[in-house]
């Protein structure tokens, strides 16, 4: 099975600033379910951009579903943070159909097949009956399911969710994780969150990111690393295989190449 994500010695940032991520290495197997946690400003969003091919690495290699990120992007089901909050004239089905953008070319309408796929995703997520409803009349949890339906639009090999639980209540979170776990049967999942409480037992591995990576299982005791880098000890000690990505407070911003 091709790994969903293989990152080796990734260093990246926004020139001319200092690197946001340094020497990060991560692997998510083809059937993996990884939670990527870390403080705000720790580089989570930057990593998401690199995976999506929106940001080019300064050095190191990133392979997504066996391909360079920009080539793999159409097969990555991206679920952004709850965008857009602003009112926009679209129905749930309209949004789900956007998952088919790029599959059906310009100067053509969405095909019957596109519509069938979008409806299938909405139904799978239990919101088929909301298809014709305007997005801005849906609840936070419902809207999120629409965004996941959109991401499922092209049969992705990897589902990448950015802060998916930010605006969803506890009860919805539970059914949400059950849903992800079900999806995990057919694709790999990477879930990015700053909310440690949001990571459930369905997750198969955890990476904590705060600028650099320290790999667990090689030479450093994980618990100590976890504490030093501000990663949640309970989670790390939970028995899930994990990696800790972080940097000590006094590490500074210099970079030695």
């Amino acid at each position, binding site marked *: 099975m091709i790994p969903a994500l293989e990152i080796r010695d990734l260093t990246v940032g926004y020139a001319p600033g200092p690197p946001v991520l340094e020497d990060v290495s991560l692997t998510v197997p083809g059937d993996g379910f990884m939670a990527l946690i870390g403080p705000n400003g720790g580089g989570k969003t930057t990593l998401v951009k690199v995976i999506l*091919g929106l940001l080019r690495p300064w050095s190191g290699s990133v392979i997504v579903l066996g391909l360079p990120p920009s080539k793999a992007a*159409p097969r990555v089901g991206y679920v952004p943070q709850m965008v857009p*909050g602003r009112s926009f*004239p*679209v*129905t749930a089905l309209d949004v789900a159909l956007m998952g088919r*953008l790029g599959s059906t070319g310009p100067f053509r309408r969405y095909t019957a097949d596109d519509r069938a796929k979008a409806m299938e995703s909405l139904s799978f997520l239990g919101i088929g009956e909301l298809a014709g409803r305007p997005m801005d009349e849906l609840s936070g949890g419902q809207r999120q399911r629409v965004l996941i339906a959109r991401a499922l639009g092209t049969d992705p090999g990897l589902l990448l969710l950015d802060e998916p639980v930010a605006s969803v209540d506890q009860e919805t979170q539970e059914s949400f994780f059950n849903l992800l776990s079900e999806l995990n049967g057919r694709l790999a999942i990477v879930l990015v969150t700053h909310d440690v409480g949001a990571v459930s037992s369905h997750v198969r591995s955890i990476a904590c990111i705060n600028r650099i990576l320290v790999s667990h299982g090689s030479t450093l005791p994980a618990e100590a690393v976890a504490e030093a880098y501000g990663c949640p000890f309970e989670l790390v000690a939970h028995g899930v295989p994990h990696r800790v990505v972080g940097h000590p407070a006094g590490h500074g911003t210099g970079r030695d190449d």
Partner: protein
Amino acid sequence: MTDLLGHAFMRHALAASALSAVASGAVGTLVVVNRMSTLTGAIAHASFGGLGLAFALGLPPMYGALGVALLSALGIAALTSGPRSESPDTAMAAFWAMGMAAGLVFIRLSGSYAPDLMSWLFGSLLTVSRGDLFLMALMDLLILVIVGGLFKELAGISYDPEFAVVRGLPAPLLRGVFMVTASVTVVMLMKMTGLILVMAMMTIPASVARLSVHGMGRMMVASGVLALVLNLSGLGLAVVLDLPPGAVIILLSGTVYAVATLLARRRRGPGRRLRSVGTAQNSQ
């Protein structure tokens, strides 16, 4: 009123009202959902430079306006995209003012007082020529081909640009296409209400339509129909009251906008979920 239809200028004015309603429905909707109404103001005012240049060179003013509108739209797009881009606000303000200034300079250089000037600033619906109508019809055709052919792409990039890029859509190209259609529409509507009032023609019908329909396609149709009704009734009212048609159309549109917005707010009232709830949730 029926006698008036015997006059060519009146028939031309009616045709221009209908042709411009098509553009303000389709492109106005895109402008409103993208919250780019200031952009249309900037393009309109920038095109004054083109009008001045055309006066100075003795060319047809509409072509001068169109050329400069396109150039300034692409200029704004170039300045405001890319990693180290200008704030759209600043870029639009600069083009807005520079166009007006260039227009003044060209008019001075041309040595004439340019009596036509007022008509470009405030519209000249009653002096639309057959040639103008031909050009307007051509512009409508271009707009319909672009907006119709790229509907789902334009909707996708407007709703969630990042997702659209991940799906492989060429964002800069679509942005350019949007800018071109917006410029064409601005120039077309200028004939109706003048460059100063174009913003209202562009945004009011679409904003009112948005209050009662969901879905971008329906919004385009509804705002096109509304624009047509507003244009025709404004024109009729202006003729009856002997007032400038462009200004009457704008005043009528503005009144409809205010009343419709207030009514919609009341109808939604407490008890029904307001759109702002979703916004508040997501802005944390």
